């Protein structure tokens, strides 16, 4: 194996440019003659636009043109990529999402006018001079109120604010109800999954450009999936054929889901660049990001667990209200349904599950997937209800979980919620977590904390999630309006170096380092001879991008497939050069040899022959060495693991401090352990952020109260602990060629219930046994109030 093959903690090559200020993010790009866009956005959550007078503003210095909805009459609305069918067989309600507000504004931040000027400052100045007459209407923010019969409607042309009423598995509903009626024990908890803002450190940017020379539109954008943007914007919004539309997503400063979606500003800049025949650039401020990026989570749920007298889980029943915001963002409807309901069995052999989700329109910014997407919401419900059940039944939470785990020998395991888990070992990850966290000595540490006046507690969370998104035929049946394969082209150059073109997109995940490790391992050449090309639809094959922890499991598998094609062809060439039978050719350490002889040709000898085919079997083999593979997964992958969080509560203030956090994950086969550990750290930080500090808060009028980093509490260095992470208890994925499952979202999925369970544990150990649950974020005020209420 070459030193940078599969399993090596190879240093990241992309770090050099990032560490020296040589990254090229979208805002670092400036095109000759570019103009700047500033959007005038709604300051009210709901209102009727009476008039927009841009005459004074248009006469301001430097203003090129001001655009309103009228200028986009020809364009389609921003499309939704997933159609959910409700439990009565009817399609969801799907309102139009215009590029600029048409007639009404529906959330604070809804764009009304796009002002294009020679400088950004001039565009902003002109926005102040636009005379906007908006009749403010009552806003609806609370989901329960939005579903009342007399509620204000977010969309006048819909029958109500209900997007869909989804039941899963609908056929199980009566059996689940019967199981609850007969159960020895029933435990229930009502909880919220707090609304979040993804907040990648780079805010969104879009630069539109039009070249009359070849009638080509180019959009530079901060996207996790340039081909998806090309498809959606080209086909549904601007009616531009794909061969005339190029999407470039260069270095992207984090995404976490929020840069999957097709946003209005992208369509605006693409279109306006052609109208004005000059490039136009929009750079979001952070304040603008808070009111225009898709938000996340925002579920209100009730979950119930039925157990028999021996504490076997009999059934789970879960009802959720899920906030969609004012419009349907690209994948919003799939998050509370297929990414949530299908995980409600968790790692447990619960035979019956019923999940009901009502998705609701409100006068808030759209809500969509964010790191974990649906799976954190499922895991939070399960791990909180099991924690509560253990307390109510007076049994150990570790034992209650173990008793109900699917056993290692039961895989593949068909769950009652459609998915079939291919592999896992929940007992092993739990044992590993307990060992690494020194759980056995917890009582001693609790006592030491008590002597200092602090309340110590330990919380456990055992998660399983679905990644490697996804089998196209399956997601098609579930309502996806896209296929979810991935692609790789392996382009071998004449002297043996390799360019790998991938449809995946790296925005922090380190693909430029880890993808070459796979090819280096398979061919036996040095990874430094292999480069990754990504992020540009003009240079890469159609792929679906990076989200849902899919890049290695799906994109990596495509790369294996393409590399195998290369090796097959290279062996044919080698057989010709060595005058041997193809079946006798062996590839090892970058050298082709004839089995049992000392005849060999090295990698570069074969690649040169492929491109300078003087001595070459031209009658049976084409010259060149370049192969493309599309890989469509057979199943989801199912990463799983066990997290332990140890905290101290200051009883005087209610402040929670994380003392230790241990993660034992099963990611299947790991390509670069260093990168995987980093992904877990980042996921844990976001999960802990959700649990302790982060919260998007709207007032009853739909004003966002947490619209900057002054108010929205991002976790900082002194909020987080040193993490202990382990991925040694792995069970390879059985249905992809790498055995890899994906690691990007695990931390954000598993961490929140571990933190909340730890806080409840600390309070119970200190005698505050009346505290059954505290909603996230578990702030000092909430903890103190819970402790001091009776």
């Amino acid at each position, binding site marked *: 194996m070459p*030193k*940078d093959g599969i399993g*090596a*903690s*190879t*240093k*990241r090559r*992309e*770090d*050099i*440019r*990032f*560490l*020296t*200020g*040589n*990254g*090229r*993010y979208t*805002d*670092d790009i*400036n095109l000759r003659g570019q103009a700047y866009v500033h959007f005038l956005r709604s300051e009210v959550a709901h209102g009727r636009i009476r008039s927009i007078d841009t005459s004074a503003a248009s006469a301001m210095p430097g203003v090129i043109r001001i655009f309103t909805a009228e200028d986009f009459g020809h364009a389609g609305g921003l499309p939704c990529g997933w159609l959910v069918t409700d439990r009565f067989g009817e399609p969801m309600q799907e309102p139009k999402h215009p590029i600029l507000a048409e007639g009404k504004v529906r959330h604070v931040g809804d764009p009304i006018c796009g002002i294009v000027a020679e400088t950004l*400052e001039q565009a902003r100045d002109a926005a102040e001079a636009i005379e906007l007459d908006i009749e403010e209407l009552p806003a609806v923010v609370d989901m329960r109120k939005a579903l009342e019969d007399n509620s204000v409607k977010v969309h006048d042309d819909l029958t109500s604010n209900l997007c869909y009423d989804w039941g899963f598995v609908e056929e199980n509903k009566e059996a689940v109800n019967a199981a609850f009626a007969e159960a020895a024990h029933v435990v229930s908890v009502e909880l919220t999954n707090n609304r979040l803002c993804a*907040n*990648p*450190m*780079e*805010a969104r940017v879009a630069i539109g450009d039009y070249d009359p020379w070849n009638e080509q539109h180019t959009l530079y954008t901060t996207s996790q999936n340039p081909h998806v943007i090309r498809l959606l914007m080209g086909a549904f919004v601007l009616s531009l054929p794909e061969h005339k539309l190029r999407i470039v997503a260069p*270095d992207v*400063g*984090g995404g*976490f889901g929020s840069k999957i979606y097709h946003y209005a500003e992208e369509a605006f800049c693409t279109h306006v660049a052609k109208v004005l025949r000059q490039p136009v650039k929009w750079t979001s*401020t*952070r*304040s603008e990001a808070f009111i225009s990026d898709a938000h996340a989570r925002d579920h209100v749920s009730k979950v119930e667990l039925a157990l028999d007298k021996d504490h076997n889980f009999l059934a789970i029943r879960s009802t959720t209200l899920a906030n969609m915001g004012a419009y349907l963002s690209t994948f919003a409807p799939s998050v509370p349904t297929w990414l949530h309901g299908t995980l409600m069995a968790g790692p447990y052999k619960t035979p019956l599950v019923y999940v009901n989700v009502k998705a609701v329109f409100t006068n808030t910014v759209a809500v969509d997937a964010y790191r974990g997407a649906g799976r954190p919401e499922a895991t939070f419900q399960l791990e909180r209800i099991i924690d509560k059940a253990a307390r109510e039944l007076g049994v150990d939470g570790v034992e209650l979980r173990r008793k109900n785990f699917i056993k290692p020998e039961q895989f593949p395991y068909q769950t009652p919620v459609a998915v079939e888990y291919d592999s896992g070992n929940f007992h092993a990850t739990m044992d590993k977590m307990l060992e690494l966290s020194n759980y056995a000595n917890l009582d001693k540490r609790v006592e030491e904390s008590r002597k200092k006046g602090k309340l110590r507690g330990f919380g456990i969370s055992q998660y399983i999630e679905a990644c490697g998104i996804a089998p196209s035929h399956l997601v098609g049946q579930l309502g996806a309006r896209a296929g979810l394969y991935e692609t790789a082209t392996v382009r071998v150059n004449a002297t043996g170096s390799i360019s790998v073109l991938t449809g995946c997109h790296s*925005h*922090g*995940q*380190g693909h430029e380092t880890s993808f070459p490790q796979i090819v280096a391992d398979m061919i036996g050449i040095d990874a430094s001879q292999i480069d990754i090309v990504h992020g540009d639809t003009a240079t890469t094959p159609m792929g679906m991008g990076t989200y849902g922890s899919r890049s290695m499991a799906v994109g990596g598998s495509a790369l294996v497939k393409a590399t195998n094609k290369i090796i097959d062809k290279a062996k044919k060439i080698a057989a010709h050069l060595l005058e041997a039978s193809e079946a006798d050719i062996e590839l090892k350490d970058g050298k082709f040899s004839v089995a049992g002889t000392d005849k060999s040709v090295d990698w570069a000898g074969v690649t040169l022959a492929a491109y300078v085919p003087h001595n070459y079997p031209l009658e049976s083999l084409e010259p060149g060495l370049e192969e493309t593979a599309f890989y469509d997964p057979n199943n989801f992958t199912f990463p799983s693991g066990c997290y332990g969080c140890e905290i101290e509560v200051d009883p005087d203030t209610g402040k929670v401090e994380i003392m230790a956090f241990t993660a034992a994950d099963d990611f299947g086969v790991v390509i670069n*352990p*260093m990168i995987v*550990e*980093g992904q877990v*750290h*980042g*996921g*844990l*930080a*976001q999960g802990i952020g959700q649990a302790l500090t982060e919260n998007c808060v709207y007032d009853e009028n739909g004003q966002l109260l947490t619209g*900057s*980093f*002054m108010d929205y509490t*991002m976790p*900082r*260095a*002194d909020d*987080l602990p*040193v*993490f202990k*992470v382990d991925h040694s208890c792995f069970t390879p994925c059985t249905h992809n060629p790498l055995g890899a499952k994906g690691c990007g979202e695990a931390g954000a999925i598993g961490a929140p219930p571990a933190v909340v369970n730890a806080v409840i544990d600390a309070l119970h150990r200190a005698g505050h046994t009346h505290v059954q649950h505290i909603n996230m974020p578990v702030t000092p005020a909430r903890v103190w109030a819970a402790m001091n209420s009776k």
Partner: protein
Amino acid sequence: MNKISMTVNGKSVSADAEGRTLLSTYLRDGLGLTGTHVGCDTSQCGACVVHVDGQVVKSCSVLAMDVAGADIRTIEGVAAPDGTLSTLQQAFQDHHGLQCGFCTPGMIMSAAALLEENPKPSEAEIRHYLEGNICRCTGYHNIIKAVMAASGQDVSDMGTIAAE
């Protein structure tokens, strides 16, 4: 518009700027030094940190005209002229102290200033000092580890170390 001059990474430079032009804008748009990033508009995130006459400054909260004539150091001026990374930059690569790279320039500039003030900071001191630099990717674990390693401290109990 006025021509504003200063010294940036050892070179005398000048570019046009309005009275309201921020130092971050001057560096990025005026001089094309796009290594300095802007991640917020409330002076919270620290992606834009540079050194002004040796002091750590958030360049989004300073007017370019107010630092006319000053000696500025940005991320572009940290590595040696031949491209060799500084000890701190190298430690960030060795210990995977960055992912998307967007906060990294500010993080390096802040951490470099910390190590000048305090050559062997404790974990708690590093966390406290970097409180004004937000990273959304790393959970800070590997950033802390990199800064400790750069200051010669043993980090072998903090997880995997990159292979050469």
